């Protein structure tokens, strides 16, 4: 048995290759991160406090958590969010996607393509790329602080809308720096793509994303898989299979057929390529990437296209931004059925379900995270490449690279919620 600590990923995990006569026979992605029991934590809490608590599931994508929880309650309590407040919240979500993708592409994943192992080496040997990427991360931090209150655990998202609108002059400053951010990002993208070291092999991948009408996906009323099969958000828990394995602190998910599936940038890209901005398509088409990506390593291409697309969406938001006062929004009905919502977090579908009592306190809940959905797919791709291969450190390195291509967020995958589908 060979194992390797997962590095340059969020959280604690290991990849273990089992072997017989020196040949790889199976793989286990062990999630050793300690559980925090969020399902229990939110039990008994008023729904209005829940976004601030679930945002703590993830230090990388807390906006997605806060927003998904808020939307779940808005759906079941018939709360109408004013359009301007919704746009502001989606802009914070967009900034989070930029931040998360740039950190992954330029700081965590790039060392794989350069065959180096540390941030320090990156900062010394590729200082021009390092400094451009850190400038973008710092700018995205300013966007999140200005619109959402802070970089992690944003505080300007509530059930029903936002707490306040930032001043137009503050937003103007973000807008002022955007052209340079876009130029820097294009330089980084070209540097990564010019390396020519993204593998071209074909992986058999199933994938899924939220259904989002005619827009590149953020929030959806349902989910859709690569074969066109789809389900309303309310039916998501019956659209996938859930399993628990003894070697991992994270639950895992499969398609109803038993096949593993991937979520995240590659799934969104392949399902919604036509809704990407033309500028983003052009940037990657120069390198031969078109409407479908062939393997999980190419997720980096999807992240690049999505980041550019999202920066342009943010530009539009800044251009049209006007400071307003917030509207008081209240529940208009008692909770009707389960409170559900699904959004596209940076790493893919994030699904929340809460059941509320009459006092609007949580009775039980279920949160399905992107990384938990990706675990079975990671193992599947690793096995398709390494089954029968010589069980050595090179095999471990390949396995780790595959895992890293999914950009796993391990803390998220170990929050772990309810399975028994109890309805009130």
């Amino acid at each position, binding site marked *: 048995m060979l194992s390797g600590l997962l590095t340059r990923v969020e959280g604690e995990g290991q990849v273990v290759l089992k072997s017989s006569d020196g040949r790889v026979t199976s793989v286990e992605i062990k999630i050793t991160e300690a559980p925090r029991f969020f399902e229990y934590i939110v039990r008994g809490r008023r729904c209005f406090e829940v976004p601030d608590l679930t945002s703590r599931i993830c230090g990388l994508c807390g906006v997605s958590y806060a927003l998904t929880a808020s939307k779940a309650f808005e759906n079941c309590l018939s709360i109408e969010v004013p359009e301007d407040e919704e746009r502001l919240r989606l802009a914070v979500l967009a900034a989070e996607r930029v931040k998360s993708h740039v950190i992954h592409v330029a700081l965590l994943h790039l060392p794989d393509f350069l065959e180096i192992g540390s*941030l320090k080496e990156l900062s010394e040997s590729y200082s021009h790329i390092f400094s451009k990427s850190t400038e973008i991360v710092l700018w995205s931090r300013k966007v999140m602080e200005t619109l959402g209150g802070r970089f992690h655990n944003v505080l300007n998202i509530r059930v029903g809308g936002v707490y306040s609108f930032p001043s137009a002059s503050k937003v103007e400053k973000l807008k002022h720096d955007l052209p340079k951010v876009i130029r820097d990002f294009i330089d980084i993208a070209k540097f990564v793509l010019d390396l020519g070291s993204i593998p071209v092999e074909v992986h058999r991948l199933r994938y899924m994303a939220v259904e989002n009408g005619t827009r590149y996906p953020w929030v959806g009323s349902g989910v859709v898989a690569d074969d066109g099969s789809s389900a309303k958000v309310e039916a998501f828990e019956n659209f996938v299979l859930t399993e628990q394995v003894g070697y991992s602190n994270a639950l895992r998910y499969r398609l109803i057929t038993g096949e593993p599936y991937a979520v995240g940038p590659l799934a969104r890209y392949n399902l919604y390529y036509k809704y990407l901005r033309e500028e983003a398509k052009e940037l990657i088409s120069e390198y031969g990437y078109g409407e479908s990506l062939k393997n999980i390593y190419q997720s980096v291409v999807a992240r690049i296209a999505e980041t550019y697309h999202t920066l342009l969406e943010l530009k539009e938001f800044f251009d049209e931004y006007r400071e307003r006062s917030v509207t008081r929004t209240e529940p208009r009905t008692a909770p009707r059925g389960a409170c559900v919502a699904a959004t596209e977090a940076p790493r893919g579908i994030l699904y929340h379900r809460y059941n509320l009592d009459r006092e609007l306190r949580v009775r039980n809940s279920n949160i399905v995270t992107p990384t938990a959905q990706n675990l079975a797919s990671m193992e599947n791709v690793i096995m398709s490449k390494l089954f029968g291969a010589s069980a050595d450190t090179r095999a471990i390195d390949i396995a780790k690279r595959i895992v890293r291509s999914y950009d796993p967020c391990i803390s998220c995958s170990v929050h772990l919620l309810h399975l028994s589908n109890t309805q009130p």
Partner: protein
Amino acid sequence: MRKLSVSVLKLTSCSGCLNEVLYSLVARAELLRYLNISYFTELQDSNAIEDVDVAIVEGSIVNSEQEELVKQVREKSRVLIALGTCAVFGGVQSLRAGEDLRTVVLASYPNPDHIKVLPEVKSVDSVVNVDYRFSGCPANGEALARFLVKLVMGGSESPIVESLCSECKRKGILCVTVFDGKPCLGPITLSGCGALCPSFRRGCYGCYGLNALIVDREKLEEFSKVVERLGMSREDFMAMLKAFSYSSLTKSSSSR
């Protein structure tokens, strides 16, 4: 100037504070020249935890392996920093502390046998001595960056212990309780965030933890009645305290 060796560790947490470490390294790029980062799995390929000048620890302790790990790290570091509300107070996962463990685990897992955790959620300083504490959910990366610069220069941090209200006053933010009638935990919460919630016209919910230097049990009781009159039930108030100040609640009833 001698380089400071640093290891950065994660226990039970969300990595939000580790990202503040990343931020401080990115925002003060010169720091990377003076630090030798020996262990930081989120950022680089690392293997063993070695002897270092500074260990930065994120997260709380919920199993015996983490307890052993943090003891080892203490032995191998000159200065140990508890970073973030989880490390300093226990963090949101403390909401399940002291509850029936089987109920807690079953709420999350169909098969509870594989899941090994302690019934308690422990702050880092309840297991080892801690030299510096940076609470906050997440901790303030700007403050951490300034601190690391001072350490590199051979100086040290002199902590300021004050309540969040001081920050509102310095920044000229109108009091959300006085002017908007909203419940706000600012008077009993440690400063350090820059009064973020009040600057967005919402009450503080205490994520930097209890200012236990000035707030004892009796004052907490009085304060709970104040926020109750403003619409925050005692149950909800106690839940927020447990979520972000757990270890100080348990300490104030013990002899520490």
